[in-house]
């Protein structure tokens, strides 16, 4: 492992509180070191910005619905393919890139860790195959639990210990990382073509309300002490007036404390908050409720959120929220794909065009920017586009440009056809705040790493942490003449190191590394009740045998990295 020393760069590292002063970053044996020998290769980062490798907390980048999106959108790849070049395999796909292109694009933008946002447990083998073919970045996947028959039955009688035992079993079998909940109860209702639109609508046959599911899963998550909090996509997404359901869901977490040994303080992570902060009663009086949602989250310290910024592109929406996708295809009449998974979840895929000429899309764009600008504590608000739902992740530099430059926001607002409606229905016009590089580092590095329970190994430049470093050609000292320079600087890094290996130089892939698959191995007390339930359901209701289901993730993860959790309560 060769040694590197990055000299006189402007370092931004919230983990050590470094706010842009010039420091040397030493890299040795894949870790950040205090000092290196004189034979270390010198990287001159004069007039450049040095940050840790970014952490993507929520993106649909691997799995069956992502691949269904690739299969059914050939026009997304027409005339936009990148040929094989040097170490880079060929890549294609604007809104849903192929796996090789996903890995390269993330690395070139300085991202070194990414989390697949929704993995149907039965298809985890498919997710891991795609993770294996995504080069460079470390990855973990969140199995979905919010509509799982085991969870519905256990939480109906509030059996937290059984739910925790089942969660531990499923995380081990599918090599999963955290508890993900999508439209709790609603997706199981969608198996009969119905939906749960509020936290109190009972699920057909199982007769449990989404509120009980959410509350039960938060308790089970803290009972286990998992690295990441429960990660929720609440009911009633994307409908005008859905901010009330969002607040009802957040209130369920009141009074709960985080119990884990990974330094996480939150108990609930609300994902793609933009889609859940809509007011009004129909698309005519559609308005932003970002203020109400961010006020609540500012007051309650045990909640973290990510934004879900709309980037005004033609993209493909894909989510485990089956009923929403059916509702969306009812609106734009584009091709609709859906796959109900037995006993577990569902997935829906519909293309969507966020056109600047449509007022709803412009307001969605504004809401996505209001949320991070109104959040007081950047460590609890992370930047995502819920790739590819609100826009492809390759647009992060553009989102960063809008957040760091009021001028850039104004030029975009003036370009809207319904500019007056955007200004009247949202407060984007009155927000003058411009994100600093330090806050950006909190929102894309230290914050997500902390809530994912990875604060000890990535998201920072403290000696001893993994040597994931990104160097941007952006001089923080010179004032920004043209906001486009921000977007250009953050699109391609000057240097990127992953586990101490230089993988990107001047925006080109120059190296690769044996990427890791992060997963959580939770040990719980032996639970014969849950073991019997699992055997019985596989005997009678699953369409594959238990041995084949349990062989899902085992020998197929080339480089697993387990976070050990001991939840054996005495």
């Amino acid at each position, binding site marked *: 492992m060769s040694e590197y020393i990055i000299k006189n760069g402007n370092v931004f590292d919230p983990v050590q509180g470094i706010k842009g002063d010039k420091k040397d970053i030493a890299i040795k044996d894949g870790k950040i070191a205090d000092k290196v020998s004189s034979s270390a290769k010198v990287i001159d980062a004069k007039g450049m910005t040095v940050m840790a490798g970014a952490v993507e907390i929520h993106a649909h980048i*691997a799995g*069956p619905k*992502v*691949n*269904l999106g*690739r*299969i*059914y*959108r*050939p026009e997304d*790849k027409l005339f936009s*393919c*990148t*040929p*094989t070049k*040097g*170490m880079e*395999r*060929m890549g*294609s*796909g604007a809104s849903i890139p*192929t*796996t*090789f292109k996903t890995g390269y694009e993330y690395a070139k933008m300085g991202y070194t860790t990414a989390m697949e946002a929704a993995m149907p447990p*039965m*298809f985890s*083998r*498919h997710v891991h*195959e*795609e993770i294996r*073919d995504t080069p460079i970045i470390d990855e973990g996947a969140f199995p979905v639990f919010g509509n799982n028959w085991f969870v519905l039955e256990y939480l109906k009688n509030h059996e937290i210990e059984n739910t925790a035992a089942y969660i531990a079993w499923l995380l081990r079998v599918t090599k999963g990382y955290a508890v993900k909940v999508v439209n709790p109860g609603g997706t199981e209702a969608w*198996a*009969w*073509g119905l939906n749960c639109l509020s936290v109190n609508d009972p699920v057909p*046959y199982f007769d449990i309300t989404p509120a009980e599911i959410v509350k039960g899963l938060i308790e089970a998550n803290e009972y286990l002490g998992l690295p990441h909090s429960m990660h929720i996509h609440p009911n009633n997404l994307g409908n005008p007036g859905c901010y009330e359901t969002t607040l009802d869901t957040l209130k369920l977490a009141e009074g709960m404390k985080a119990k884990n040994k990974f330094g996480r303080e939150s108990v609930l992570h609300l994902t793609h908050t933009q889609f859940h902060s809509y007011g009004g009663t129909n698309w005519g009086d559609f308005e932003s409720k970002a203020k109400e949602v961010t006020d609540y989250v500012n007051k309650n310290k045990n909640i973290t959120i990510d934004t879900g910024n709309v980037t005004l592109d033609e993209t493909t929406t894909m989510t485990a929220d089956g009923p929403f996708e*059916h509702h969306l*295809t009812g609106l734009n009449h584009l*091709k*609709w*794909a*859906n*796959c*109900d*998974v*037995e*006993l577990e979840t569902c997935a829906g*895929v*519909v293309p969507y065009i966020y056109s600047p000429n449509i007022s709803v899309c412009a307001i969605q764009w504004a809401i996505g920017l209001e949320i991070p600008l109104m959040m007081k504590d950047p460590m609890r608000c992370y930047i995502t586009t819920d790739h590819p739902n609100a826009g492809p992740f390759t647009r992060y530099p553009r989102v960063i440009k809008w957040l760091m430059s009021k001028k850039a926001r104004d030029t975009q607002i003036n370009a809207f056809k319904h500019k007056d409606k955007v200004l009247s229905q949202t407060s984007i016009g009155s927000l003058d705040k411009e994100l600093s590089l330090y806050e950006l580092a909190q929102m894309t590095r230290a914050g997500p790493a902390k809530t994912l329970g990875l604060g000890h190994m990535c998201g920072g430049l403290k000696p001893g942490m993994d040597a994931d470093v990104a160097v941007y050609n952006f001089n923080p000292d010179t004032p920004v003449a043209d906001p486009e320079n921000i977007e250009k600087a953050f699109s391609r890094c000057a240097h990127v190191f992953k586990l101490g290996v230089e993988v990107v130089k001047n925006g080109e892939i120059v190296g690769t590394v044996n990427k890791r698959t992060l997963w959580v191995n939770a040990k719980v007390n032996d639970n014969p009740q849950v073991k019997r339930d699992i055997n019985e359901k596989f005997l*009678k*209701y*699953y*369409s*594959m*045998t238990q*041995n*084949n289901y349990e*062989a*899902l993730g085992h020998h*197929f993860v080339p480089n697993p990295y387990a976070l050990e959790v001991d939840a054996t309560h005495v």
Partner: protein
Amino acid sequence: MTKTVTDVICPFCGTLCDDLEVVVSDDGKQLLEVYNACVIGTEKFLHSQAKDRVTRPRLRQADGSWKEISYDEAADYTAAMLAKAKKPLMYGWSSTNCEAQSVGNEIAEISKACCDNTAAVCHGTTLIAVQDIGLPTCTLGEVKNRADRVIFWGCNPAHAHPRHMSRYSIFPRGFFTGKGQMSRKMIVVDPRCTDTAKMADVHLQLEQGKDFELLNALRVAFKGEWLPDVVAGIPKEKIREAADMMKSGRFGIIFFGMGVTQSIGKNHNIDEAIAVTKDLNEYTKFSIMPMRGHYNVTGSGEVFAWQFGFPYSVDLTRGFARYNPGDSSSIDLLTRGEIDAMFTIGSDPGAHFPISAVKHIAAVPSVCIDPHLTPTSGVSKLHVPVAFNGVETGGNCYRMDNVPIDCRKVVEPPEGMLTDEQFLVMVRDRLKKLKGAA
């Protein structure tokens, strides 16, 4: 003494039964018996024990006889052929595991080839229709647990997917379908009175090639609009009756097969069938699922999709992926004579392509990787026998509803035989040297 391997996956059709039990000798060299498999699956496992199997690669000589060569020479020949060809076609991939397919994709990318799987003659038109209108589908367990309306449109599971009805669609007693067969209405649409149709509650025996019209009539019947007296040979009363039966279900599923994908209208038949399913989702819950033929053609489509972006008929000749069935699909490439080398693996185009396409396979340098003796190996220049995938080597494969299941090695392959993945790795390494790639 013998030992029994349980939870074995049958590597023949898209149903991918995973509850087989295989009895092998203690030393794992002999396969004695197969339980729980249909007659085709049993034959596939037992045929691995055939004594007259070809176990070494053989090269066709000028005088027509076969000359046995080593695997190394075979790999050299294949790599040289692919490196020299201006537009090689790498076809098949459907009876091999996903690991071999990944290595094959690397070879295709280095040699700038066209690659295609047996979807080209099976469910290729389904994929075109899915690209036009989407695909509301579900996994087979949802059908087992919830379906009370089952429609077989242009497919004959009694013959093509023998255990499908007993494992998933008609007979099982699921969570909400405790009465099994009695809680399900079965409709079969087929121009013949097939063995599946003989079991159906309603059999619509339509005129062959008129599926598009009948599906369109169903959509009109859902909306209660005017209908001509007879559509595709079916009187309009029977059409309205079938439409009402579909609407009155709680959870319906349409399985469709070669009857709609290979008849005139091709992708539009499936396009309209999916539109029927979407319309039915306004009244009740409906899904649709293709009856995939080969056990891992879905896997090949998935691997192509996440590595190149397209499910089949991928043209890599320009260094990036292009796709347009009709231009980059195997049958058109062969019948128009656009190919100057043929590489076949895990399929048998010699028997299952129209003869005018097979003539072109015989006309160009061609390699066939297949454990069996087939018409393709008969017309190819080089025949490389490999271990039976799913019997003598494991690997990942995908069921017809895209569920990945890990098939496993049950018995040792004959002495000195390589698996297809090992052979492909040899070809890839030689190709890299020839092309000077890093």
